[in-house]
């Protein structure tokens, strides 16, 4: 049995993802030099501004041309470039275990694969990736490292998780938001079937911390359309509640409600400048990631 990243992505998929990069739309704070703009001024080729010379400054940084014009000492400052730290928040609540068909993966399985793909892209860009797994609580917080070895270990750990019973997505998100001090990129992979206002508040919390947030709203196609042919007694996967219903007669109202639910998230995310994407579990992972990242790259130019 495959372990680590090989358990989620095959070589062909990885080949497709090789040249992609996940760019932050905002400045981030990293520990290593990288391809992302840093909040710090440092050593790079991109000029930032001048400042008055202070004793102790490196003489090499004095702008002699300015001294010639003004007889004053000014030091040239350059935009610092750092690496990106990406935190993947993976929801393993009870509802994530849903799969409408044996041919389709459950939402949790799909989310894991999506996390692996995103991690692979991030590491390939020499950025650091970390992972937080949560259900009814924060189950695991895996370190944010720029290492395939660490990633493999993280994914091995992830393989051991199954969807939990309940969910506490908003609380966990607040907790994680508080724990990440430097500006980073937060990728949330979840079905967001929680208290919607609380989730939106949690997202706002991330934004307040100046993180670049991406929400990958993962849903099963049947969840969207209620495309079931026969009546059944439905059981809530999180609280065990049951309901007898005929999906054919409810489809119209269900679709309207689901549309409203998704629309609210979309609207709130747009207001908070959060990148929101709806992901259906019947879409191929590599295709989605590739399309998404290319579109993101195009829009960030």
């Amino acid at each position, binding site marked *: 049995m495959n372990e680590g990243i090989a358990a989620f992505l095959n070589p062909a998929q990885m080949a497709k993802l090789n040249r992609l990069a996940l760019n932050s739309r905002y400045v981030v704070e990293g520990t290593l030099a990288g391809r992302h703009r840093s909040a710090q001024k440092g050593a790079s080729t991109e000029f930032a501004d001048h400042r008055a010379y202070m004793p102790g400054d490196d003489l090499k940084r004095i702008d002699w041309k300015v001294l010639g014009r003004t007889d004053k000492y000014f030091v040239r400052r350059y935009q610092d470039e750092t690496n990106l730290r990406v935190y993947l928040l993976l929801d393993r609540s009870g*509802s*994530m275990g*849903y799969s409408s068909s044996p041919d389709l993966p459950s*939402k949790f399985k799909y989310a894991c694969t999506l996390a692996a793909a995103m991690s692979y892209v991030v590491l390939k860009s020499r950025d650091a990736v970390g992972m937080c797994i949560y259900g009814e609580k924060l189950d695991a917080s895996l370190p944010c490292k720029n290492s395939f070895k660490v990633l493999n270990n993280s994914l091995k750990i992830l393989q051991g998780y199954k969807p939990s019973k309940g969910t506490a997505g908003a609380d966990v998100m607040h907790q994680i938001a508080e724990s990440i001090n430097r500006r980073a990129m937060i990728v949330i992979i979840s*079905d967001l*079937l929680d208290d919607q206002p609380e989730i939106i508040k949690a997202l706002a919390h991330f934004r307040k911390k100046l993180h670049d947030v991406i929400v990958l*709203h993962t849903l*099963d*196609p049947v*969840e*969207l*359309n*209620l*495309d*079931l042919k*026969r*009546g*059944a*007694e*439905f*059981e*809530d*996967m*999180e609280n065990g*509640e*049951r*309901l*007898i*219903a*005929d999906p*054919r*007669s*409810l*489809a*119209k*109202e*269900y*679709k*309207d*409600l*689901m*549309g409203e*639910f*998704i*629309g609210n998230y*979309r609207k709130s995310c747009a207001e908070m400048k959060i990148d*929101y*994407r*709806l*992901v*259906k579990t019947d879409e191929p992972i590599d295709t989605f990631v590739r*399309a*998404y990242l290319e*579109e993101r790259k195009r829009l960030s130019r």
Partner: protein
Amino acid sequence: MLVFANPVFLWALTAAAIPLMLHMFQRRRTVVTPFPTLRFLKAAQKRSSSRVRFENILLWLLRTLLLLMLGFAFAMPVIRTTAAGSWLSRTRRDVAIVLDASYSMNYELDRGKVWETCKDAAAAVIEGLLPGDRVCVYLAAETPIPVIEKPTTEHATVIQAIRALTCLPGSSKLDEAVATALAALEQQEGRREREIYVMTDGQSLPWQGFRDAAKQDETVNNEDLAVITREQRDAVSFFAMLAGAKTPENSWPADVKVSPLIMLSGQTARLNVRVGHSGAAKQITVGVEIDGQERGRRSVTPEADSETGVEFVINGLEPGIHIARITTPPDALPEDDEFLCLLRVRKQLPALIVGPQSATRYLKAALAPGAADEGVRQIDAAELDSVDLRDYQAVFLCDAFPLAGQAVIRLEEYAHNGGVVIVFPGDRAEIAAYEDMGVLPAQPQSVENIPVEVSARPLRRIPNSPEQIVNFNMSLPPGTVPTIALKRVMRLGEMRESAAILITAGDDTPLLAGRAVGRGRAFMFTVNADRDWSTFPLTAFFLPVAHQLIRQGAGASIQPPHVVLGTQPPVNEVIPEHRADDIISTPSGSQLALRDTGNRTYIIENLSEPGIYTRAKAGADAPEPVMAANTDRTESHLIPVAPAELEEWTSFKKLFVANDPEELIKLVDEYRNGRSLAEICLWLALLLALIEWWYANRILRKQTGASEKLVVDLAGKVVT
């Protein structure tokens, strides 16, 4: 009252619970299906609950009703039309069948003649009776004709009698036939259910008696005037089958007027034909054949349901009796497409001159210029007893008085039967001799000599007054004033009834007076036929006046060119010169029945066959045509009666109107056994099944349409 023919199938009504049971059963079999969250399902259920409940209840109702209807249909519910319907169907009944026998029943429809349809329907009604039910049959003609007079239980015999019936040529009166049939039913013992069936073609004419009675009811409010009383109408069940065409089309020659009535050889005859038409206006070709040879063909376009006239001019008819046949194109009612009449053409009008040679020589010379003219005969008064006056159109009495009493009676009878008696006075008789002759226009008063100085008198024709019965239309030559010289004149007393002075000599002296006597005429001159009293026989007007008088009288006494069936005319009125030993044959060859009413007057008893009647005289070589009989054409006006009118006119409490035998049998069945609702239930079930199928599919389609997939584009946006 609702009863069920198959009550055991009422158990099938429990099937109505199947939809509900299925619904409940289906709920129990639901499979537990994990679902991420129920919050949207709950909210959707809350939103759609009223709609879904409504749809479910409607579907449940439709399915339950569908099964109920099927259950009812198998149980065969029957509504009794009367409160005691359950035992009515088993009770004994007396039935009278009235068949309209008018000739319009021969109208040809797609399924055959109406008459045959009606006979079939009558047979079917009888076949539907139970053993022991009694039935009688009447034909509705001008007078009701009993076929089976007393109600009988021999149904097969009655059907056989109905099958043998033929349609009659005349019209019919249904009210009298129904009243007769009702009376026959009422004479039966026991209180049985009474039913009357009238089989007719649905024309309004036979119902006229009912309509008139209804009007009398309205105006006089006296029910005794009606043939059928209110109690009778309420007690009997009346079934009418109107089997004729709803928009009939028919054209027919309605009447023919021949002028002049007396035709002489070489004269032009005019046939004025009235052509009737029922239905929308159309062009009709009318043809005339004389003795089988076509003599004319004209097209006319009468208005819808109207009559129009067309005239034919016939020339070159030889002396003798000619058969004229007027035809219209063949149509659905062929019985009235032909009209027959006889044209009698004479060489000369036969006249008898009675009197001595001296008094009659001018008249005989005027009327019979040839020495051997057979048309005019002169005899003495004494020979009058040996002469049959019926051989002559006119009898001239020239100085013939006094006459024997028997001779006077014969002359009066002759005048009453249509002959013309023309009297010229003379010197041989006293004034009193004329008193016995009661048919004269006036009683002679005296004979007066005219002085020579006032003897010249201009002749003047007295114009006919409007109410005058005796007409004299000969016009005197224009620009001349005919004058005679009077030597002696007979003074007349007061004019008798129906008498008038026709010509005067001068202002105050009547020359000619005339009187209508029965069907004939009597004329009296105030001068004799010789030149002793006046110069009148010597004038140029003597002959025309004599001819005019003969023709006038002859016109009154001539037999009509055609007669109408259904009448009982005296033989002398329709057949000329009839003798007791003559044999009159009907068109079919049988001998015509005559009835002696006494006084040597015969009446045709039953004139029922249209066509040409012939007479075989004793010793004659071949029979000659003597009479043309045609059906009364009032029945040809085909105006359908509406069921609503029938209801209004007949006022039967239990009136059932059918348009064909099938409908009649259905009505009878419903009346006797009640009305079955099984068929209606099945139709309703079919309708409900269709509605259920349509509605269920509509709901399903709507649901499919509502669950159109939410499509997510590459940007992650939901596209609906």
